Protein backbone atom coordinates (compact mmCIF):
# COMPACT_ATOMS: atom_id res chain seq x y z
CA UNK A 1 0.00 0.00 0.00
CA UNK A 2 1.26 3.35 -0.78
CA UNK A 3 1.38 5.63 2.19
CA UNK A 4 1.07 9.26 1.41
CA UNK A 5 3.24 11.29 3.63
CA UNK A 6 1.38 14.22 5.04
CA UNK A 7 3.11 17.52 5.24
CA UNK A 8 2.39 19.34 8.46
CA UNK A 9 2.08 23.06 8.37
CA UNK A 10 4.71 24.61 10.58
CA UNK A 11 3.40 27.54 12.51
CA UNK A 12 6.08 30.11 11.87
CA UNK A 13 5.84 33.37 13.65
CA UNK A 14 7.69 36.39 12.40
CA UNK A 15 10.28 37.26 15.01
CA UNK A 16 11.61 40.37 13.30
CA UNK A 17 9.54 43.03 15.12
CA UNK A 18 10.20 41.42 18.49
CA UNK A 19 13.94 41.32 17.89
CA UNK A 20 13.81 44.92 16.68
CA UNK A 21 12.13 46.01 19.88
CA UNK A 22 14.41 43.97 22.13
CA UNK A 23 17.52 45.41 20.50
CA UNK A 24 16.07 48.90 20.85
CA UNK A 25 15.51 48.29 24.56
CA UNK A 26 19.01 46.90 25.04
CA UNK A 27 20.50 49.90 23.28
CA UNK A 28 18.41 52.24 25.47
CA UNK A 29 19.46 50.66 28.75
CA UNK A 30 23.07 50.34 27.65
CA UNK A 31 23.30 54.03 26.88
CA UNK A 32 21.69 55.04 30.17
CA UNK A 33 23.56 52.63 32.42
CA UNK A 34 25.63 54.47 34.95
CA UNK A 35 28.98 53.01 35.81
CA UNK A 36 29.93 55.98 37.98
CA UNK A 37 28.10 54.68 41.03
CA UNK A 38 31.30 54.40 43.01
CA UNK A 39 30.94 58.03 44.07
CA UNK A 40 27.73 57.45 45.97
CA UNK A 41 27.17 55.76 49.28
CA UNK A 42 24.04 54.02 50.48
CA UNK A 43 24.23 55.67 53.88
CA UNK A 44 24.08 59.15 52.42
CA UNK A 45 20.96 60.89 51.13
CA UNK A 46 22.01 64.30 49.90
CA UNK A 47 20.01 67.45 50.61
CA UNK A 48 18.53 69.26 47.63
CA UNK A 49 19.06 72.72 46.23
CA UNK A 50 17.66 74.50 43.20
CA UNK A 51 20.85 76.45 42.59
CA UNK A 52 23.42 73.73 41.99
CA UNK A 53 24.30 72.45 38.58
CA UNK A 54 26.48 69.50 37.62
CA UNK A 55 30.09 70.72 37.48
CA UNK A 56 31.35 71.53 34.00
CA UNK A 57 34.80 70.17 34.71
CA UNK A 58 35.96 67.51 37.11
CA UNK A 59 37.49 68.84 40.32
CA UNK A 60 41.23 68.34 40.54
CA UNK A 61 42.69 66.13 43.25
CA UNK A 62 39.34 65.21 44.80
CA UNK A 63 39.07 63.74 48.28
CA UNK A 64 35.58 62.32 48.67
CA UNK A 65 34.17 62.26 52.19
CA UNK A 66 30.78 60.71 52.85
CA UNK A 67 29.29 61.84 56.15
CA UNK A 68 26.54 59.50 57.38
CA UNK A 69 23.65 60.67 59.53
CA UNK A 70 25.38 59.45 62.70
CA UNK A 71 28.46 61.54 61.94
CA UNK A 72 30.67 58.69 60.72
CA UNK A 73 32.89 59.57 57.80
CA UNK A 74 33.44 57.14 54.94
CA UNK A 75 36.46 57.67 52.75
CA UNK A 76 37.63 55.19 50.14
CA UNK A 77 35.53 52.40 51.62
CA UNK A 78 36.93 52.86 55.12
CA UNK A 79 34.93 54.25 58.01
CA UNK A 80 36.41 56.93 60.24
CA UNK A 81 35.22 59.03 63.13
CA UNK A 82 36.06 62.71 63.40
CA UNK A 83 38.96 61.75 65.69
CA UNK A 84 40.47 59.18 63.34
CA UNK A 85 39.78 61.04 60.10
CA UNK A 86 43.16 62.79 60.35
CA UNK A 87 44.93 59.49 59.64
CA UNK A 88 42.95 58.85 56.48
CA UNK A 89 43.40 62.42 55.27
CA UNK A 90 47.15 62.24 55.89
CA UNK A 91 47.31 59.24 53.61
CA UNK A 92 45.52 61.14 50.85
CA UNK A 93 47.69 64.19 51.39
CA UNK A 94 50.87 62.15 51.10
CA UNK A 95 49.63 60.92 47.72
CA UNK A 96 48.96 64.51 46.65
CA UNK A 97 52.41 65.59 47.88
CA UNK A 98 54.02 62.73 45.97
CA UNK A 99 52.49 64.23 42.82
CA UNK A 100 54.29 67.48 43.60
CA UNK A 101 51.17 69.37 44.68
CA UNK A 102 50.21 71.13 47.87
CA UNK A 103 47.23 70.08 50.04
CA UNK A 104 45.69 73.51 49.42
CA UNK A 105 45.21 72.51 45.77
CA UNK A 106 43.14 69.47 46.66
CA UNK A 107 39.36 69.62 46.67
CA UNK A 108 37.54 68.02 49.57
CA UNK A 109 34.12 66.92 48.38
CA UNK A 110 31.74 66.54 51.30
CA UNK A 111 28.71 64.36 50.67
CA UNK A 112 26.81 64.65 53.91
CA UNK A 113 23.47 63.07 54.72
CA UNK A 114 20.66 65.61 54.92
CA UNK A 115 19.88 64.77 58.57
CA UNK A 116 23.47 64.87 59.79
CA UNK A 117 23.96 67.44 62.54
CA UNK A 118 25.57 70.47 60.92
CA UNK A 119 28.17 70.48 63.70
CA UNK A 120 29.44 67.07 62.56
CA UNK A 121 30.00 68.47 59.06
CA UNK A 122 31.77 71.47 60.57
CA UNK A 123 33.98 69.15 62.61
CA UNK A 124 34.93 67.28 59.42
CA UNK A 125 35.80 70.60 57.80
CA UNK A 126 37.81 71.62 60.86
CA UNK A 127 39.85 68.39 60.81
CA UNK A 128 40.50 68.86 57.09
CA UNK A 129 41.54 72.48 57.68
CA UNK A 130 44.05 71.33 60.26
CA UNK A 131 45.66 69.22 57.53
CA UNK A 132 46.07 72.38 55.38
CA UNK A 133 43.16 71.51 53.14
CA UNK A 134 41.19 74.59 52.25
CA UNK A 135 39.02 73.95 49.23
CA UNK A 136 35.72 72.36 50.05
CA UNK A 137 32.75 71.43 47.92
CA UNK A 138 29.45 70.70 49.62
CA UNK A 139 27.77 68.23 47.31
CA UNK A 140 24.03 68.64 46.90
CA UNK A 141 21.39 67.02 44.74
CA UNK A 142 19.96 69.17 42.00
CA UNK A 143 16.34 70.14 42.66
CA UNK A 144 14.64 70.81 39.34
CA UNK A 145 11.36 72.07 40.73
Amino acid at each position, binding site marked *: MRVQSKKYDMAECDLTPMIDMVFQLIAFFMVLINFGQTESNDRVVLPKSVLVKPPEEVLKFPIMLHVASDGEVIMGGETFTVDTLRLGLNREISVIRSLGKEPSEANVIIRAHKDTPAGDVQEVIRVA*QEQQLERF*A*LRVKEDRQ
Partner: protein
Amino acid sequence: MKLRNQKEPIKHEVNMTSMIDIVFLLLIFFVMTFKIVEMEGDFSVRMPLASNQTGVVDDTELPLKLRLRADAEGRLASIQMNEVSLGTDYDALQSTVIGLVGSAAPGAASEDGPEIEIDTDYNLRYEHVIDAITAVSGYKSGDQTVKLIERIKFARPRR
Protein backbone atom coordinates in the same frame (compact mmCIF):
# COMPACT_ATOMS: atom_id res chain seq x y z
CA MET B 1 6.17 23.01 -20.44
CA LYS B 2 5.32 21.34 -17.22
CA LEU B 3 8.32 20.02 -15.38
CA ARG B 4 7.88 17.06 -13.22
CA ASN B 5 9.86 16.25 -10.14
CA GLN B 6 10.92 19.82 -9.87
CA LYS B 7 12.85 20.24 -6.62
CA GLU B 8 11.45 22.59 -4.03
CA PRO B 9 13.90 25.33 -3.10
CA ILE B 10 15.73 24.44 0.13
CA LYS B 11 14.75 26.65 3.04
CA HIS B 12 17.59 27.62 5.31
CA GLU B 13 16.15 28.24 8.72
CA VAL B 14 18.38 29.97 11.17
CA ASN B 15 17.92 28.77 14.70
CA MET B 16 17.08 31.90 16.65
CA THR B 17 16.65 30.31 20.06
CA SER B 18 20.17 30.80 21.36
CA MET B 19 20.34 34.39 20.17
CA ILE B 20 17.02 35.25 21.76
CA ASP B 21 18.19 33.61 25.00
CA ILE B 22 21.26 35.80 25.15
CA VAL B 23 19.42 38.91 24.08
CA PHE B 24 16.84 38.44 26.82
CA LEU B 25 19.60 37.83 29.35
CA LEU B 26 21.24 41.09 28.35
CA LEU B 27 17.93 42.89 28.49
CA ILE B 28 17.21 41.58 32.00
CA PHE B 29 20.72 42.55 33.13
CA PHE B 30 20.34 46.13 31.91
CA VAL B 31 16.83 46.47 33.30
CA MET B 32 17.95 45.26 36.73
CA THR B 33 21.02 47.52 36.88
CA PHE B 34 19.17 50.54 35.58
CA LYS B 35 19.09 53.45 37.94
CA ILE B 36 18.11 56.97 37.08
CA VAL B 37 21.12 59.18 37.62
CA GLU B 38 20.40 62.09 39.87
CA MET B 39 22.28 65.21 38.97
CA GLU B 40 24.51 66.56 41.68
CA GLY B 41 26.33 69.83 42.06
CA ASP B 42 28.58 71.59 44.51
CA PHE B 43 28.59 74.66 46.71
CA SER B 44 32.20 75.71 46.81
CA VAL B 45 33.55 76.83 50.14
CA ARG B 46 37.07 78.11 50.41
CA MET B 47 38.11 78.03 54.01
CA PRO B 48 41.74 78.20 55.05
CA LEU B 49 42.56 77.87 58.73
CA ALA B 50 41.24 80.75 60.83
CA SER B 51 44.74 81.83 61.89
CA ASN B 52 45.78 82.40 58.27
CA GLN B 53 42.59 84.16 57.51
CA THR B 54 43.04 87.07 59.90
CA GLY B 55 45.61 88.54 57.54
CA VAL B 56 43.33 88.32 54.52
CA VAL B 57 40.38 90.33 55.75
CA ASP B 58 38.25 91.77 53.00
CA ASP B 59 39.04 95.48 53.11
CA THR B 60 35.80 96.60 51.48
CA GLU B 61 33.23 94.65 53.46
CA LEU B 62 33.05 92.84 56.74
CA PRO B 63 31.67 89.32 56.60
CA LEU B 64 27.93 89.12 57.09
CA LYS B 65 26.96 86.99 60.04
CA LEU B 66 24.24 84.42 59.67
CA ARG B 67 23.18 82.68 62.84
CA LEU B 68 21.03 79.55 62.61
CA ARG B 69 19.42 78.19 65.74
CA ALA B 70 17.96 74.73 66.15
CA ASP B 71 15.39 73.20 68.44
CA ALA B 72 16.06 70.00 70.39
CA GLU B 73 15.16 67.82 67.40
CA GLY B 74 17.48 69.58 64.98
CA ARG B 75 14.80 71.56 63.17
CA LEU B 76 15.34 75.18 62.33
CA ALA B 77 14.18 77.41 65.17
CA SER B 78 15.33 80.82 64.01
CA ILE B 79 17.45 82.67 61.49
CA GLN B 80 19.36 85.74 62.49
CA MET B 81 21.19 87.93 60.00
CA ASN B 82 23.55 90.50 61.45
CA GLU B 83 21.60 90.38 64.74
CA VAL B 84 18.27 90.90 62.94
CA SER B 85 15.87 88.05 63.58
CA LEU B 86 14.08 86.70 60.52
CA GLY B 87 12.03 83.87 62.00
CA THR B 88 12.38 80.68 59.98
CA ASP B 89 11.67 82.20 56.60
CA TYR B 90 14.31 81.61 53.94
CA ASP B 91 12.58 84.10 51.62
CA ALA B 92 12.96 86.81 54.25
CA LEU B 93 16.63 85.84 54.52
CA GLN B 94 17.02 86.11 50.77
CA SER B 95 15.36 89.53 50.57
CA THR B 96 17.59 90.73 53.42
CA VAL B 97 20.65 89.51 51.53
CA ILE B 98 19.42 91.20 48.33
CA GLY B 99 18.95 94.40 50.34
CA LEU B 100 22.46 94.16 51.78
CA VAL B 101 24.31 93.00 48.71
CA GLY B 102 22.19 94.48 45.94
CA SER B 103 20.99 92.70 42.86
CA ALA B 104 23.90 94.12 40.86
CA ALA B 105 26.30 91.97 42.84
CA PRO B 106 27.28 89.33 40.30
CA GLY B 107 29.33 91.59 38.05
CA ALA B 108 31.18 93.32 40.85
CA ALA B 109 31.43 90.33 43.10
CA SER B 110 32.91 87.76 40.77
CA GLU B 111 36.23 87.63 42.60
CA ASP B 112 36.02 89.49 45.89
CA GLY B 113 32.35 89.77 46.64
CA PRO B 114 30.82 89.93 50.07
CA GLU B 115 31.47 87.09 52.42
CA ILE B 116 29.08 85.40 54.79
CA GLU B 117 29.93 83.50 57.93
CA ILE B 118 27.46 80.81 58.93
CA ASP B 119 27.27 80.17 62.62
CA THR B 120 24.95 77.27 63.30
CA ASP B 121 23.88 75.25 66.29
CA TYR B 122 25.63 71.90 66.46
CA ASN B 123 22.52 69.75 66.16
CA LEU B 124 20.84 71.64 63.30
CA ARG B 125 20.18 69.29 60.42
CA TYR B 126 22.54 69.76 57.52
CA GLU B 127 19.70 70.20 55.01
CA HIS B 128 18.66 73.43 56.76
CA VAL B 129 22.19 74.73 56.41
CA ILE B 130 22.07 73.91 52.70
CA ASP B 131 18.70 75.69 52.44
CA ALA B 132 20.24 78.75 54.07
CA ILE B 133 23.27 78.58 51.77
CA THR B 134 20.89 78.32 48.81
CA ALA B 135 18.99 81.40 49.99
CA VAL B 136 22.12 83.53 50.39
CA SER B 137 23.92 82.22 47.29
CA GLY B 138 21.37 83.39 44.79
CA TYR B 139 18.03 82.76 43.23
CA LYS B 140 16.55 81.50 40.01
CA SER B 141 15.02 84.00 37.66
CA GLY B 142 13.54 81.95 34.85
CA ASP B 143 16.38 79.87 33.49
CA GLN B 144 19.01 82.26 34.77
CA THR B 145 20.65 82.09 38.15
CA VAL B 146 21.24 85.40 39.87
CA LYS B 147 24.20 85.10 42.20
CA LEU B 148 24.29 86.96 45.50
CA ILE B 149 27.00 85.79 47.89
CA GLU B 150 29.60 83.35 46.65
CA ARG B 151 32.07 83.42 49.50
CA ILE B 152 30.79 81.27 52.31
CA LYS B 153 32.56 80.16 55.43
CA PHE B 154 31.59 78.45 58.64
CA ALA B 155 32.21 79.72 62.13
CA ARG B 156 33.76 77.36 64.64
CA PRO B 157 31.46 74.46 65.53
CA ARG B 158 29.45 75.03 68.69
CA ARG B 159 29.62 72.17 71.15
